[in-house]
């Protein structure tokens, strides 16, 4: 199979994820969409790794997976903390960082 298909799928994953990040307001869904974007990137790296026949891309994907897992831990921890403090689960409501 040609590599284009993989890249198209990867781009679609990335775009769907990015659209989700932009339009959704629930932080859990935003996190989910971030994961989609990461998977899109990872798939592109994997396909190029196969194309060039070396393992670098696969190793990077492993790193990405680890980072993604860590990111979800922190992100979900934040969501749980928000929930405990009865802060509404809506990213637009969190404007405390406004300068």
């Amino acid at each position: 199979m040609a590599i284009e298909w993989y890249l198209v799928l990867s781009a679609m994953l990335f775009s769907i994820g990015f659209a989700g990040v932009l339009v959704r307001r629930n932080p859990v869904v935003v996190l989910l969409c971030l994961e989609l974007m990461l998977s899109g990137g990872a798939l592109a790296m994997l396909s190029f790794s196969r194309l060039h026949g070396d393992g670098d891309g696969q190793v990077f994907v492993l790193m990405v997976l680890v980072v993604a897992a860590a990111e979800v831990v922190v992100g979900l921890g934040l969501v749980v903390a928000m929930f405990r403090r009865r802060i509404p689960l809506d990213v637009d409501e969190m404007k405390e960082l406004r300068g």
Partner: protein
Amino acid sequence: MNAASWGWLVLLFPLLGSIFIGLTFRRIPPKAAGLVGIAAIAAAFICGIAAVISLQGEPAESRHVADSLWTYASVGGLSIDLGIYVDPLSAFMVLVVTGVSSLIHIYSYSYMKSDAGYHRFFSYLNFFVFSMLLLVLAGNFVLLVVGWAFVGFASYALISYWYRREAATRAGMKAFVINVVGDIGLVLAAILIFRELGVIDYGAVFEKAPEVFTTTNEWTAVAICLLLLVGAFAKSAQMPFHTWLADAMEGPTPVSSLIHAATMVTAGVYLVARAHPLFELAPAAADVAAIVGLVTLLVAGTIAIVVTDLKRIIAYSTMSQIGYMFVAVGIGAYSAGMFHLMTHAFFKALLFMAAGSVIAAMANIQNIDRMKGFYKAMPFTAAMLIIGALALSGFPGTSGWFSKDEIIDFAAFRGGWYEIFAIGGYIGAFMTAIYSFRIIFRILPGPPCEEAAHLIETGHVVHGEPVNPATGEKEDIEVGYPGEDHHIAEQAMGMKIGMSVLGFLALVGGLVQIPGVTEVITHFLEPTFEDSPLAAMHPTVAEAWKGLAKGAVISVVGIAFTWWLYIGRPSVPETLRRTFSPIYTLFINKWYGDEIIDFLIVKPVKGFGRFANNWFERYAIGGLTNGTIAIVRSASGAVRDLQTGMLRGYALLMAVGTVAILLYFLIRGL
């Protein structure tokens, strides 16, 4: 179809069963779920038999098949197949696991009848059988680790099955954590094997090992074997990883019977037998296995003599019997160890089933001080208990007599300092006779206790308050507790079937391996161990029979001594307890195993955590971050107004910026 295809089918059925039952939770009647569970395991058992038949059709030297579905990782010279390896040893384990599992599924079908989580139970149980078979059939060390971790999870899920009980969830976590320590050992062993040998498939590893490790006891070989042993000891509850098994008795009784007696806890023994080419290159590690086995068998035996919780007595007895198996595979009596594994699976599963029936009749009370006179109340259960105890204590003619004494004979035959294993084995056998018949003589004869009398008079089982017997905590009765109705073997067909078959096997299962007459197990396993000089050594038939005679005397004397203690002179145990009160305190506190681990590992880790939290976090990290914050704050005053606080706005800005930069370079490139 060749043996490998049958092997894949063996794996397929329990997996399908588990998924199907899990997905149909509360959609199909509980009865149907139970039947599907039983059918899945029975199908696996039949495929296992087919695999053995197709293996036996081959000539002895080619009786092993490796097969792989696909390669699921291939990078950096490492190629891991999703592959299985079927040879007499793994086929033997498949038969033991699926056979005993089928019977225990049938037993559970009746025993768990009033439990609200019936589907969940059978789904977990099928998943356990699948993982155990994966562990047994795995064709390389990576897949072995996968199966190893899966059974760890299944064990956790089933110990914590009644999840509203705090004691059960705690016990599950304890078992899981200790097992994960073992998993780490196994993973490190696999990594070391790959680093030293460059291969990971069983066949290739065992072929290449003698070329790489040319002298005995090369330190890398010893290290690999010791790391394998860490995994084996943790899974098989050998010292110092033994503390989880007694707590694991919080799970339902069929779980104790299947996972914590017959199958999962013997995985460590299987691992040593499977990796015997490595252990023979590192005899020092094999000696460690045997010594730890011996120590565990003696220590666990002493604890089993004093504890009063019915299930915990049997649990400590399990540790002790697995100690025998580790002695066997450690000193090179592989087929004797596997034979004891099989007979132990029969009689220990039977004992747990019978104990489950007694506990049900006691409305979940497990303390043997409260039990009396069950001989009259439950004749069938009593008979099964007696059969189990006879086989466990090695009464002449029963299965335990043949298997245990074969191990001891081999230790005596190897001579030299291996004699201590024979001596320790005989001491252990004497203790086995005492603790197994202590159960019999304390709960079967005498005037019936309240619950037994109720059963005799009304023919119904007592309904107790829904409290946890071990801790006295009140049960949450919506879900996640055993249910209101208790089922005993006399009144439940499934329990009766499962126990009768196992009782029969526990009595006559040893006849397949009579020295000089049948020796089926040794011949069957021969192709696996043919490369081993140790397995080729055999005591002569006359020596074997002499050992069997010694074992018979010890068992009969032990049983008679126990009779004298508990029936002849019932005042003696109390006097003994008072006279030797320091020793008694040591035994009843399980040699302070929990406390020692608490002191050596848990407390230092907690102390380090407190240090990290109170001091390091506050001053080192806190100081660093606060300093950074101060710098950034003073610098950011200038650009503050750009920050709107809208998260999605930031994301959009970032994307627009990135795209703009990319476009710039694209256009300039053209």
